[in-house]
């Protein structure tokens, strides 16, 4: 294929094939009964073809594109059996031929777009140079005892029947063993295995005001040995059950601005949404993005005791496996520990091989879900504090701050369900972090009170200035992040943070009545 394409008038300047072979296992149970285990094996490949040059190629953004930009991408299915070489070759041939023809057409449109539109603020090229990488990771087995785990899940889920409040529930085990293979025309050859296992416990009910109360807890591990015991899972089911029951009866937060402590996981998600997406490289040269931090390298963006690092090479923290770990990104570049904010000063961005003014080289953060184009994404985002206090002291500082501000109460945010943020220029560059429940902390010393229905909202530059203290306890949030290049596994780690002032709004809520009839059967 190379030889034929080299003879074309617009030959590719770079090509890559990224294949994923995956083996997924899914076990689930609810109400004390299990589903049949399911196993899913698939193989897919992305073929990337770049036409033009490193300075300008077909991947260049077409501004104000609308229907004009056919930047669609799709992955190709591959045979499950390695021995089917002819079929593999044929599938890749079709995909490469189509990708090349599309690339050639798009470059024509790119050139027109440049002629018609004004100059961009960042005139960086489209593709940085990168050395060849050759690496073959050691393959791992999932090694899940299916019968044993099905029994554990079945028994654990039966504990939800102890409640007359829980309407729906599940206890699940998802395990995936995948191998990414990347080859490029620069000679990169990578084989990158990964094992990821998650135990999930979920339950929901409907509060009397129609709000959906949903609690989800998960354990993430890179191997079966790291998974929790049956007793731990049953305890977690009980915790989730009791939390749902309490939340269903808890009062709803009023909109307010108040000091708050974000416990570790909440703080981690907060930073992922508010900072993490804004330091992704491609957003720095996209004129449709808000570019909150683009011109702030060297400036203070956070309090001087806070640093932020993204380190995909880290595998675990405090015994917890990190979801965002990888050795090489999806463009074949070795992952790099990247200091984004150093003691409050912005230093760098997360980059792929799409250069930006501040960071012309990739630092190994080019990622994608199969079937998408690569963009810079987070990996393991780590928030650290050089000055910390105990959590008990942090709580005392919260109460002091309440009194200083003359506020009746503040909050402790225990847990979140997720969040989102707008980074463009049309909608306000705001964020929303959705909490599961919050504790109201009274300045006058009354006992804490569980509340529900609160979203934390704000804008990044204002909110970061309000971080006043951090604890010495660090928590990990493992999850998946969805953005332009699809869903990728990530983690965020943070200490508990005291924030001088943050706004809480009421969460969106549903309006259906709880079930009209009592649940069948008595609680066991």
């Amino acid at each position: 294929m190379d030889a034929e394409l080299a003879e074309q008038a617009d030959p590719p300047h770079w090509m890559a094939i990224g294949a994923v072979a995956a083996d997924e296992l899914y076990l689930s149970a609810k109400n004390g009964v299990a589903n049949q285990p399911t196993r899913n094996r698939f193989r897919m490949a992305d073929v990337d073809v770049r036409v033009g040059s490193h300075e300008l190629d077909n991947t260049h953004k077409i501004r104000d594109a609308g229907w004009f930009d056919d930047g669609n991408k799709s992955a190709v299915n591959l045979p499950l059996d390695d021995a089917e070489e002819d079929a593999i070759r044929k599938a890749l041939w079709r995909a490469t031929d189509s990708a090349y023809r599309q690339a050639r057409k798009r470059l024509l449109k790119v050139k027109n777009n440049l002629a018609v539109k004004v100059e961009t603020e960042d005139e960086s090229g489209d593709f940085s140079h990168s050395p060849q990488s050759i690496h073959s990771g050691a393959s791992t087995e999932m090694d899940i005892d299916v019968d044993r785990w099905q029994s554990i899940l079945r028994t654990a889920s039966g504990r939800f029947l102890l409640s007359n409040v829980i309407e729906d529930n599940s206890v699940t085990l998802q395990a995936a063993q995948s191998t990414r293979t990347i080859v490029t025309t620069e000679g990169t050859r990578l084989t990158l295995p990964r094992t990821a296992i998650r135990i999930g416990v979920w339950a929901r009910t409907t509060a009397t005001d129609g709000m959906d109360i949903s609690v989800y807890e998960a354990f993430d591990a890179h191997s079966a040995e790291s998974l929790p015991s049956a007793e731990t899972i049953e305890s977690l089911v009980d915790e989730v059950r009791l939390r749902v029951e309490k939340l269903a009866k808890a009062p709803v937060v009023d909109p307010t601005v108040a000091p708050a402590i974000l416990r570790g996981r909440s703080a981690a998600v907060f930073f992922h949404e508010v900072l993490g997406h804004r330091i992704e490289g491609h957003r720095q040269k996209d004129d449709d993005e808000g570019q909150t931090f683009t011109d702030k390298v060297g400036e203070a963006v956070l309090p001087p005791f806070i640093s932020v690092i993204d380190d995909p090479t880290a595998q675990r923290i405090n015994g917890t496996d990190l979801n965002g770990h990888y050795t090489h990104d999806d463009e074949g570049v070795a992952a790099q520990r990247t200091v984004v904010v150093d003691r409050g000063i912005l230093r760098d961005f997360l980059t792929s091989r799409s250069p930006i003014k501040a960071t012309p080289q990739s630092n190994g953060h080019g990622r994608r879900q199969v079937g998408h184009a690569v963009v810079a994404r987070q990996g393991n985002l780590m928030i650290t504090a050089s000055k910390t206090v105990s959590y008990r002291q942090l709580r005392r500082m919260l109460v002091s701050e309440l009194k200083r501000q003359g506020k009746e109460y503040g909050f402790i945010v225990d847990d979140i369900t997720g969040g989102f943020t707008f980074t463009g220029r049309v909608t306000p560059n705001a964020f929303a972090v959705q909490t599961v429940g919050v504790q109201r902390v009274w300045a006058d010393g009354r006992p804490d009170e569980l509340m529900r229905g609160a979203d934390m909202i704000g804008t990044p530059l204002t909110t970061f200035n309000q971080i006043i203290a951090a604890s010495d306890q660090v928590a990990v949030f493992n999850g998946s992040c969805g953005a332009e290049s699809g869903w990728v596994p990530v983690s965020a780690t943070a200490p508990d943070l005291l924030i001088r002032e943050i706004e809480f709004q009421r969460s969106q809520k549903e309006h259906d009545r709880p079930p009209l009839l009592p649940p069948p059967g008595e609680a066991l």
Partner: protein
Amino acid sequence: MIGLFFMMGVALSLDPVAHETVTKAEMKRALEGLKLPNQAVPHHITVTVSTGHFSSVRAQDGAVTSSQSGPSRDLRVDVRVGDSDFDNGNFRPSMGIPDGVFSRRPADEYSDLSFQRELWLALDAAYKGATQTYAAKEAAREGRDGPFAPDLLPIQSPTVLPYRAHRITDETKLKTLVRQLATQAAAPEHLEDSALAAGDWAGSGLVMTSEDTSAWIPTTFTIVRAEMIARANDGSRLRNTRSWVAASPDKLPNVDDMIESVNEATAWLKALHDAPIEEDYLGPVLVEAPAAAELFRQVLHPEISGTPPWEYAPDSSDSDTRPIPVSRIGRRLLPAGWNVWDDPTENPQLASHYTHDYEGVPARRVDAIQDGVLRDVLMSRVPRADRTQSTGHGRSSGLNRRVAMPAQVTVKPKKTMPLSRMQRVALRHAKSAGNDYVLVVRRLVPPALSEDFEFAFTGDGPLAGLTPPSEVHRLYPDGRTEPVRGLRFSGVDRRSLRDIIAASTTHESVEMTDSAEQSARFSLSDLGGHPVSWAVPSVVIGEMELRGAGGGEARVISAP
């Protein structure tokens, strides 16, 4: 994302009595207890528990790309509030308002309590949705004169059918078949792509109603589809397909026959490489089997299915929103002397055979077209003004209402002639139309494999036209034939069949899959749908219009 996806562990045994007992108990609780203040209460509930086993295998370029097998369970509840003359059924409220149909996925393992909890949640959600749709319908009819048709046809008596164990599908056997066909399909060098897909389903659906119907309805069918792609000399993409539908893998044709059919399909593509494009044709067309089965199925399905469209809320133009059925009793659809009947019970060997429909109503023969005129229609329990009984033809997928759809249809002409004479008749008419040849259509693309996104924006109306022909040739008076390509039909509708000028005897049934809702062809996936069969003659239609186009983008890289 497709992959190798299989269920591990032993197949679960089903306790039908437990299912029936628990369902009855929870339905009783729902009927007695589901009440919202000052709102309509349930007058009818249907619970459908579908349980079965499936296998599916896909291959591309001769190699398997996905394979899955395992049990499948689904719970669907349908709550009607009001009464049978006026309830929430057959009305489409504005988007976002739920209706009275809800589904949940029960666990594969069974316990009374777990299953009853699924019913509890589903019935609760369905009841709430039903009252909302009922209120929207009341509002829509406020101040309007009828008459309006009732909403649920009565049954003569409840149906009780015991459970019969279904077979377990065999993924390995299916994979072997797919491999054999895929290898054959991938072999020819002139092809740039080939794909095989096969699906096998065997199961039973428990239909229980508040009228005391308690019926286990078995369903079983196997589908195999092959697709081959090549390029013409001008770069146009050439595509041909083959499909087989049967009650089970054992009832598929002999694999050697299937391979031969695949070889014929690929040979046809080779012949099309240098074939001319038929740019514009107006004249008679000889439609041979199996294309004739597709022709009749696509044109007649909406004409003989009696279910009226949904009722909608009136828009600002104050239009009459009473739904008018597409099928019209008294309309001439075929030449004089032609008869068409549908009897789902006629041939037990076919996948389309059944004794009771998805509402538990016994299926019966319907003599739909008599002497070329529509005299009767297929019915589900959705009423229409001129019919008072279901004929046991109610089926649908997902959360859609049960509508009448064909099952085992036979089209019988009055006068027949052998193919050779039909060809002479066609050529004579072609000459009168100023053509040197007549077009012969041997195959049409089945809707399940159509690559066109087609949706009837007229609501529930049928789609105009036919799917494109995949095998067409010119027939010259001296007997010479010449394949042509690039064609699409233009302006085909119910009137086309009145132009039939010659017919053969009725061929054996062609088994296919079809969707209950005719308004969206894309809704039918390649391995989905409901089995149907059509036994039809080959026909010469006096005048049809086809237009063709070609041109495409050649590959840049040579095939490996």
